[in-house]
């Protein structure tokens, strides 16, 4: 029964998306009209509301298809312009022109913002493409059912076959259709590669600044520790030995006492250095890798800590170190603030990512905004695009998840056949949809004697309409395949590459 409900829900969602695609087609026509009016007649004021209408519809499509297909789509628009600011003399400058009032500069800014954003035109492309591609895919079961009903009503009992066919395959088909819809929406409604890269660059820029800063702070701390600790002690040792040397002849007993002191001081210096090294790169991490280093942490923790490790190989040293210090901080926090008695640490590989989960049975209520330690973890992980998620409801338990992408080399199957298929579909869909489908249809409706290379018109009379409609469906299908392969390539890139 559950399966039936799921199928019905998927079918309903498909129908809703199809409806939205049809609505979108109407909106696209409005937008096209507005664009024509603007560029041919000069009615510049109709564009802005039309674009706002388009964005409302595509925003809804983004939201629904992202939620229902499990492929969230980010809004790709440029940030809205700030209101114009008057110059010192109270005038508003726009290019080489000065205005007394802000209305026209504001309008110009807004105009540029809407018209020069490629997302505006990609939205329009989506609205035009959706009905013939993903909308059609999503609506297919309903169309088949409707066709069957019409046939049955027309007195043809074989129409039942269509209804049964739709009902039979709906279980597999409906969720798949939603995914196709999501893929197409992700390609046309999501940010372009360029926008994504721009966003990525600014993110990397910030991460780099932070990494450089924290590294500099770390080096300063080490320098200070060495200066005040081991270095100072070595100076003292040297002086003590010097003094002992002078006393060796005259007062051997005092010299012996001094040498004993020097030995103790050297042990202290070693202790200092050992503590420092542990804070820079723990020896057990260098010797054994993350798994055993985390086990060593668990042994030193006052909590009863259970460790499970399942990683295929050692990650790079800086990455291991970031994960190690995060676990160290989390275990210390659990023991110090959380009143925990038991903790579970799980280190595992998820595809190319390294995931570390730390759970404790403490009283929860940890807030990353408050503790400097937790913020430090976030900063450290940020340099590796790592993600730190903390779930700590009051009363516990606390679960912290650290995920470091690209910790292990990615092993993907070669995907060139899919690429090739996608490219072929991109090349062929317009031929099927436009000349062989739409143009042939227009000629057929007009009863034109021209046949040219339109396959449908060369057919014997009874096959002409089926071939023309078939060509249009084929075009839509090819476009759908093209869009979904692109969406798949995008997802793969995002999962493992630089996206």
């Amino acid at each position, binding site marked *: 029964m559950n399966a039936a409900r799921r199928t019905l829900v998927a079918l309903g969602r498909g129908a809703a998306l199809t409806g939205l695609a049809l609505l979108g087609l109407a909106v696209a026509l409005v937008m096209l009209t507005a664009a024509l009016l603007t560029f041919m007649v000069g009615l510049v004021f109709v564009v802005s509301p039309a674009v706002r209408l388009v964005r409302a519809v595509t925003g809804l499509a983004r939201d629904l298809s992202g939620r229902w297909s499990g492929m969230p789509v980010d809004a790709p628009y440029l940030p809205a312009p700030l209101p114009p600011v008057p110059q010192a003399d109270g005038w508003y400058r726009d290019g080489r022109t000065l205005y007394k009032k802000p209305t026209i500069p504001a309008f110009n800014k807004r105009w540029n913002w809407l018209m020069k954003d490629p997302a505006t035109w990609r939205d329009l492309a989506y609205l035009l493409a959706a009905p013939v591609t993903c909308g059609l895919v999503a609506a297919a079961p309903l169309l088949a059912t409707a066709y069957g009903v019409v046939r049955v009503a027309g007195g043809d009992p074989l129409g039942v076959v269509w209804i049964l066919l739709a009902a039979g395959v709906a279980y597999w088909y409906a969720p798949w259709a939603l995914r196709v819809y999501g893929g197409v929406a992700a390609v046309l409604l999501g940010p372009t590669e360029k926008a994504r890269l721009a966003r990525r660059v600014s993110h990397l820029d910030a991460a780099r600044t932070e990494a450089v800063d924290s590294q500099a702070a770390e080096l300063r701390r080490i320098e200070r520790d060495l200066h005040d600790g081991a270095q100072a002690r070595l100076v003292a040792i040297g002086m003590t030995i010097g003094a002992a040397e002078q006393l060796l002849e005259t007062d051997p007993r005092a010299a012996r006492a001094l040498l004993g002191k020097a*030995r103790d001081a*050297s*042990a202290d210096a*070693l*202790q200092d250095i*050992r503590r420092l*090294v*542990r804070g820079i790169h723990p*020896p*057990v991490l*260098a*010797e*054994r890798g993350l798994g*055993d280093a985390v*086990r*060593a942490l*668990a*042994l*030193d*923790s*006052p*909590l*009863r*800590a*259970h*460790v499970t490790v399942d990683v295929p190989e050692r990650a790079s040293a800086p990455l291991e170190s970031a994960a190690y210090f995060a676990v160290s901080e989390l275990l210390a926090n659990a023991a110090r603030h959380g009143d925990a*008695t038991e903790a579970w640490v799980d280190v595992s590989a998820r595809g190319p990512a390294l995931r570390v989960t730390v759970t404790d049975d403490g009283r929860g209520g940890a807030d990353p905004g408050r503790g400097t330690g937790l913020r430090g973890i976030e900063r450290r992980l940020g340099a590796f695009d790592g993600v730190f998620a903390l779930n700590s409801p009051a009363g516990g338990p606390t679960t912290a998840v650290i995920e470091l992408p690209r910790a292990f080399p990615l092993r993907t199957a070669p995907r060139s056949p899919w690429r090739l298929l996608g490219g072929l579909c991109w090349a062929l869909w317009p031929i099927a949809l436009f000349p062989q489908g739409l143009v042939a249809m227009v000629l057929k409706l007009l009863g034109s004697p021209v046949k040219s290379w339109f396959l449908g018109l060369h057919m014997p009379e009874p096959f002409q309409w089926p071939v023309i409609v078939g060509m249009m469906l084929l075009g839509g299908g090819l476009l759908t395949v093209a869009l979904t392969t692109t969406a798949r390539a995008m997802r793969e890139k995002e999962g493992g590459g630089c996206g």
Partner: protein
Amino acid sequence: MRVVLAEDLHLLREGLVHLLRAHGFEVVAAVESGPELLAALVGERPDVAVVDVRLPPTFTDEGLQAALTARRRVPGLPVLVLSQHVEQLYARELLADGSGGVGYLLKDRVFNGEQFVDAVRRVAAGGTAMDPEVIARLLASNSRNEPLGRLTPREREVLELMAEGRSNAAIGQRLFLSDSAVGKHTANIFAKLGLAPSDDDNRRVLAVLAFLGSRPG
């Protein structure tokens, strides 16, 4: 007594050879890498081995691995491991086979020649020599252990020294206690921790270490 020594730093190796010879040991092999060490341990069958954890060629825990492998091939082969840092994890691995004859000390401990040689002898005789730092960390990580909380401060001191591998006589000397007083303390400790009393020093130490290390990890 025949000793195999593994240490990659030339100065320290020479120093150790000198120290051991001065105390009447015969250094049959002084090697500087993991593979050489394993060959010497299995080939020479020394009375005791003194091994640095980090050795060439990998400069990871090569020395420890060689020692563990050798002990699997020659059960009970006495090994004293030296390191710049101590880890409970490594101590556990050395103690895991329960046969004793292991030591795990910070390199600083060679500063005090007498005590170091004493530790080497103890290990050679099948006893244990755990660094005070290991014991301190072991006790710190057991800080929420219920039975340990019931010990008196004096009993705790005795427990620490016992866990390091020292005999009753040595503990008495350290804490300025009579033999019978130490005996009373150890009996109390065993009763409080719920361990079966034993007259054998080594077995007693291993029982204490097993108790402290018994937390699942």
